[in-house]
Each structure stands twice: as structure tokens, then as C-alpha cells.
């Protein structure tokens, strides 16, 4: 029985790894990236409204100038990432359809609100 269980694990692992490798291979082709930067100061985003081109992949840097950690989160963009105090993170977004995509700082939602405008 133990052998059967081990076989199960090996089989499911192999499947997962194969899927992963196939997907990575498919990821080889990349669109051009557009750089954009957001800052966090006093638990607020600067700028609170950031305009980016629609239809392009965006490499968004978020610089936290506060000493405390924040979590960049957006349901509309389907993203979440922690940025430690005085740290910087990069999040890849898009290509986006034209529109407004709100985001927020999960740890300071009263003040840390912003929106990404794709046009």
C-alpha cells in the first residue's frame, strides 16, 4: 500500500512539473514593457491616479517611503504583494483594456487608495 501511495505522489508531482515546464516554455514570447512608478508616503499613494497606456504590459515599481510595511492589492488587477518598510517591489500588470483599475494598501485602507487609468 505504501508503494502505491508513493507512486501516487510521484505521478502527481510529475504531472505538475510537466505542466509547469510547458507553461514556462510558452512564456518565452514577451510583449514590450512600459515602466511606471508609484510611491507610498504617509500611507498614501503618489500619484493617487496613475495613467498608463492601454494594451501594453506594465512593469510597475512601488516604492515605500514609510518605515512600516504595506500590501499593494487590487481586485480589479488581480494583484497582491507586500512591500516592506523603505522597500521597493515590482509587479507586472496587463496588457490592460482601457479603463479604471482601483488599487489599495491593504494595511492602511482608510488612506492608501489609488487608481490605475489605462488609456
Amino acid at each position, binding site marked *: 500500500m505504501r508503494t502505491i501511495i508513493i507512486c501516487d505522489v510521484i505521478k502527481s508531482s510529475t504531472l505538475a512539473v510537466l505542466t509547469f515546464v510547458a507553461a514556462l516554455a510558452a512564456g518565452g514570447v514577451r510583449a514590450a514593457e512600459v515602466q511606471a512608478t508609484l510611491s507610498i508616503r504617509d500611507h498614501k499613494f503618489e500619484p493617487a491616479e496613475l495613467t498608463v497606456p492601454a494594451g501594453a504590459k506594465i512593469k510597475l515599481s512601488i516604492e515605500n517611503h514609510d518605515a512600516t510595511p504595506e500590501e499593494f492589492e487590487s481586485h480589479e488587477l488581480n494583484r497582491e504583494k*507586500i512591500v516592506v518598510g523603505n522597500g521597493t517591489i*515590482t509587479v507586472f500588470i496587463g496588457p490592460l483594456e482601457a479603463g479604471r483599475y482601483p488599487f489599495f494598501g*491593504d*494595511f492602511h485602507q482608510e488612506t492608501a487608495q489609488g487608481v490605475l487609468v489605462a488609456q
Partner: protein
Amino acid sequence: MLGTGLLVFREVLEAALIVSIVCAATRGVVGRGRWVGSGIGAGVLGAILVAAFANVIAAAISGIGQELFNASILLAAVLMIAWHAIWMASHGKELSAQMKSVGSAVQAGSRPLSALLIVVAVAVLREGSEVVLFLYGQAASGAGAAALAGGIALGVIGGVAVGFALYFGLLGIPLRYFFSATNWLMLLLAAGLASQAAGFLIQADLLPALGNRIWDTSALLSNASLMGKTMHTLIGYDAQPAGMQILFYAVTATAIALGMKLWGNPAAPRRHAKAAAAN
């Protein structure tokens, strides 16, 4: 205090929902409290460590350490659930029969409870590390100890209460269907975790999105709402999923379902023979 309580509640809730499903799936197993307890303990310890080294993890591998870490532990949990679900598919009926005839707990035997310990630990670690970082920030910004403690208490009690409600709700499922029901719940849970892992790999630009938003049901059920969050944790509901997430979801669900079929049913006659011999 209320703000703190709310954030802690949301994170604890997500972990508690997963722990509840694991508890339901291990119903009647001798010593399962120890396994689940150890998983929670390991998760809390891991959460503190991950929070303490958050800057190291974030900076690792040219800035995508956080995504890789999250994706890896999520996929590890997926494999563990798959292993357990497939094991249960071949032993579930036996367990139900044993529980019905003896009317009490059964020995774990060769059941992979360590797999579920890892699932619990991963769930607690992921949500817990966010709580720890948040609380650290609150404390550093001068929040009072009493307000923080009150917030933590509120959040933990609230989250755990919902977890218990789900657990006791699941116990209402008739014993005949119980283990196949919890097994299917575990399958959906695993598929959801795989989809989350895909999300992190897309965010890090390691995987193509294959379409950013294949559909949008946020008007129907938003991921920002409590119900949306609950469904997100339990079955991997996503109002705006990327194509790659759907692919991960479908592949995981299919692989586990196939595993349950392939290794679950053929062993049945042998099991009955064994059970008969034991009687």
C-alpha cells in the same frame, strides 16, 4: 481596534476555512487534533519567520522571491491535498463502514496525515505572515498595546467562529456521503490554491497570463466582499481570472479526479475481501 480586528479577521478566516475542511476530512481519526494542532503551530512559527525575513524574501531572485515563495508553498499544499484525496478515494468507504460499525474513532493507519499537517501549516503561514507584518506596522506607528491586543482577539475569535460554523455544518452531511463530500471539497480547495499559485507566477512575469481577464463576474460576486473572499478560499472563486489560472485550476482538478478514479476504485474488491477476512 476595529480596523485591526477587521484585518486580522479576514486573514484568520481564510486560514480557518481551510483548517475546517481538513478537520472535517479527518473526522474520526485518532490523534488528528495533534496533527492539526502541530500544523497550526508550525504555521504560526513560519509566519513569524517569514514576516521577520520579509525584506530578504522580497529582494531574493531579482525581486520575485515573494511570488516564487508563495507559488511554491501553494503548489506544495496542492500536491499534499492530491496525495491525501487519492488515498482517501481508495479508503473512504472502508472508513465510513468502520465508523458506522464501531461508532467511534478509527486508527489513522497508513493515512498520510503529515500531508494535511503541511496543508494546515501553509494556510496558517500565508495568512499569518500578513497579520504579523500588519501588526508590526501598527505597533511601529504607535498603536497602543491594548488596542492591538483587543483587535487581535476580536479578529481571531471571529475568524475561528466562522471556521467552527463551517466544520459543524459539514458534520451534518450524512456519513454515507461524508468522505466523498469532503474529498471533493479538498479537490476544489487544491484547484483553487493552484489557481492562486498561477496568479503569483503571472504577477512575477514567469508565466504568460493567457488572457488577463477571461471573464468578469465581479458585479455578481466581488472578490472584495466577504462571501467572495470565502468562496475564493474554499473553491478558488475568482471574479476576474486569467487564462493561466483557469488552466491551472482545470489541470489540478482533472488530475486529482483522475487519480481518485484510477487508484480509488480498482482496489475496491481487494478491500472488501480484506475487510471480510478481518471479520
